[in-house]
């Protein structure tokens, strides 16, 4: 790390202001960023894939994709980036920041943002709907760490889950109609009991990466 000049510090403060982290946390995250990219400026997929602990995670592919997804960067575009800078890194991580106590409306907004992040993770083709195939893919990934499970079971579970969503959200459908997929509103509706705003959080406060031994 070079000597702290006014440039990066100013950038940190901007970022802290934008994403809601404290300056201390931004500094720590910057250290981590540098560690992951081996002191380059941009982060690519290979850098994330090199994290050994992540290799055991059944949904690592989707997690990595989430970092490169333009929709999570607050832009209106769709598509993927090939490499991201520190700012995008922190933006994605800010989805997991524990919310400070706010008014009910703000909490609702935060919940919506977090659910949007999850939705984007499932909706891989960017069409705004989670189709049966995409959902099946999610379930298969979740079960992928168990080698003995066949594709049939994943299919059965995802079918049942889809059916449940359709039953809850749409209700009455004739025999000829076809249910396209889960829209974002329906997604919010079925997950309203999960209390995302309290569960989808990580404590960032003791994040001193210099003492962490996270092998490559």
């Amino acid at each position: 790390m070079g000597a702290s000049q006014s440039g990066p510090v100013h950038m940190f403060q901007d970022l802290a202001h934008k994403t809601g982290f404290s300056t201390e946390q931004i500094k720590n995250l910057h250290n981590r960023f540098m560690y992951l990219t081996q002191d380059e400026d941009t982060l690519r997929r290979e850098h994330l894939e090199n994290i050994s602990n992540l290799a055991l995670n059944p949904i690592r592919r989707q997690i990595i994709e989430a970092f490169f997804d333009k929709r999570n960067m607050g832009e209106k575009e769709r598509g993927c980036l090939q490499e991201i800078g520190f700012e995008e890194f922190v933006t994605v991580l800010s989805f997991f920041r524990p919310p400070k106590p706010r008014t009910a409306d703000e909490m609702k907004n935060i919940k919506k943002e977090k659910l949007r992040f999850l939705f984007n993770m499932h909706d891989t083709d960017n069409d705004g709907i989670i189709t049966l195939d995409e959902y099946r893919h999610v379930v298969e990934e979740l079960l992928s760490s168990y080698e003995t499970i066949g594709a049939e079971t994943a299919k059965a579970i995802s079918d049942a889950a889809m059916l449940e969503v359709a039953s809850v959200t749409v209700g009455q459908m004739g025999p000829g109609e076809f249910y396209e997929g889960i829209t974002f509103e329906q997604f919010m509706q079925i997950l309203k009991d999960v209390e995302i705003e309290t569960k989808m959080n990580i404590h960032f406060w003791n994040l001193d990466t210099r003492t962490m031994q996270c092998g490559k």
Partner: protein
Amino acid sequence: MSVRKRRIYIDYCGMFILVLGLLVGSLMPLGGAASSPDTGTGHGGSHGNKNPGNGTTYSKKPFPVLSFDYEHVRLPFEISLWVLLASLMKLGFHLIPRVSSIVPESCLLIVVGLLVGGLIKMVGEDPPVLESKIFFFYLLPPIILDAGYFMPIRQFTENLGTILMFAVVGTLWNSFFVGGLLYGVCQLEGHKLAYVDLLSCLLFGSIISAVDPVAVLAVFEEIHINELLHILVFGESLLNDAVTVVLYHLFEEYSSVGSITFMDVFLGIVCFLVVSLGGIVVGAIYGILAAFTSRFTSHTRVIEPLFVFVYSYMAYLSAEVFHLSGIMALIACGAVMRPYVEANISHKSHTTIKYFLKMWSSVSDTLIFIFLGVSTVAGPHQWNWTFVVATVIFCLVARVLGVVGLTFVINKFRIVKLTSKDQFIIAYGGLRGAIAFSLVYLLNPKHFPMRNMFLTAIITVIFFTVFVQGMTIRPLVDLLAVKKKQETKRSINEEIHTQFLDHLLTGIEDICGHYGHHHWKDKLNRFNKKYVKKCLIAGERSKEPQLIAFYHKMEMKQAIELVESGGGAKLPSALPSTVSMQNIQPKKPSQDRALPQLSKAREEEIRKILRTNLQRTRQRLRSYNRHTLIADPYEDGWNEMLLKRKKMKELEKKMNNYLTVPAPPPDSPTITRARLASDPQAWGLKSVTESIPTIKVDLASPQSPESVNVVDEFSKKGSQPKEEEGGLTMKVPSPAKQRKDKTPDEEPQQRLMRCLSDPGPAPEEIQPLRSCSGCALHI
């Protein structure tokens, strides 16, 4: 009041008075408290010895046709009477709806105890007192085991830090605050209380400051408060047992000596760690033993619940041998063994365990409160206004201050902060109960001359908390609009996303390089999956992921619901929707393959024929004989049924490739009618009468060759992919299969196959079959 209700009340009152009379009467003739079985045996012994002694002068009495020998059965008889009384009381409360909604059950039971005690005293006898040995060995364990076995582990571990803070630091604070201030009051008071020394006060403080799990459970169960608060207060009441044990022994040991040094305090801290961790370790060991044992019980299902109970009780007793915390051992045992035992035991055993635990804990609970009331009448009292009032006030103040102070510190570390409403409920829910009473009762009067005063004070505090706080907590909860418990069933979407979130958060933590909560939980899960589950879970289920287990359980539940709702009626679910599988399956692109183009009428014929064919095979299968009828249709039948459903799904899938499926092209009226005609769902799943040829697929019996003929190829094909799906629990039982008339293999969501298998028999075969179809339809 209607006539019927009045009759119920009258009958009930009559029965109750009878039992009460029996109870009082039983205590009368032979005087003394209930704990004197020796007189009984002595009496019986002497009786036996009389005759041989006086051999020669023996005069013949007429043969006793009927004799009255109460001593013979005295002890068990009285115990049974008390249990019966307690249970009748419980029945009674729920017959009177208005009272039970205002006053919590525990209060009513104490009042009943007071009445019974008063009655006994009026008769002139000594009412029995709640002996500590009986309490700690027989009455307390079922309640704790019930709580520990069904503890929601996820919430407990998420809030463990908070719970520990409240349990350890909170109890310590309470003890010293109350003890110290009481000592001050005693010194100030002067003449009557001067003999109460510091250590005794501290001992008293430590006994009285422990929140009681029995009382908390009794009250909180009725108010249905949200899970977070429930687990906080309840967890605290369980975990503070270790603190209480250590403090109690510490002060009791040294009160005779009169002073405590720093060395003793240090040893006390070490002792605390040993007591709590030791208790947990002992419990965990027994839990693992129980889980391991349950692996081998697949052939003797009947005694499975016994293992759960006996191992847990042994854990409790073993911990008590070393003066470790028995409560924590019991909790650890229940919590550790549960996931593995549940994977191994049968459905019936699971239900048995659940109901036995609930029954025992309910009876224990009732008995405890009744005896509290009786003991109040019986116990030696020494009333001292200053001491008692001071105790009550200091307890309340200490609790409030402790909760507020601790929450302030804890909220810095919590994501979900505790609001002031939460704090109020936590403080208000700190009820004291029978454990405190028993602990005081155990004190030796020689060392503690003020024991009676303590006893009075404790009873007053208990009464205060149970009556005042217990009664007012429900309206307060409503007034403050505290969040209540969510009664919603867990859906599979929530389960999927909970797991997804777990993995997601672990991944993010790994990316940040932060070894947090999720990282360690993930590591533990992986360890569990790789090593522990293989040892402790029998057979294929050890490899079953949690999601599959959940899905399986959900299917089971739905199937049971379907059966219980009569099988015919539409499922009274919360989702009255007509969405079915076909709405979800994507539209298939038009097939390229050369399907035989069947005309619509032809299709209808084919369907009819297949239907009647099945109908006939079903008729054949109906002949019961001893080999096909298993004594236990339900248990293994569930697996059977699920097996069948699996196969049917396979078949359905293959079906979609052969015949025109419901979804895409708009069908002609004939086909629509035909489809609806054979569609069980369209019938509204009402009860099947013989004239309606609904399709009940029995893919089972190897005895009837016809059925094998029709579906054999598919059952074979269907079973192949199954072998690879090792994760499913298909323990296919012995070949003798049976049918269940009333358990339809369909669910509203899963369409049964409208038609089976083959793409139609060859034209020449239709002729002979058609002649039978007519008669088959009229069966």
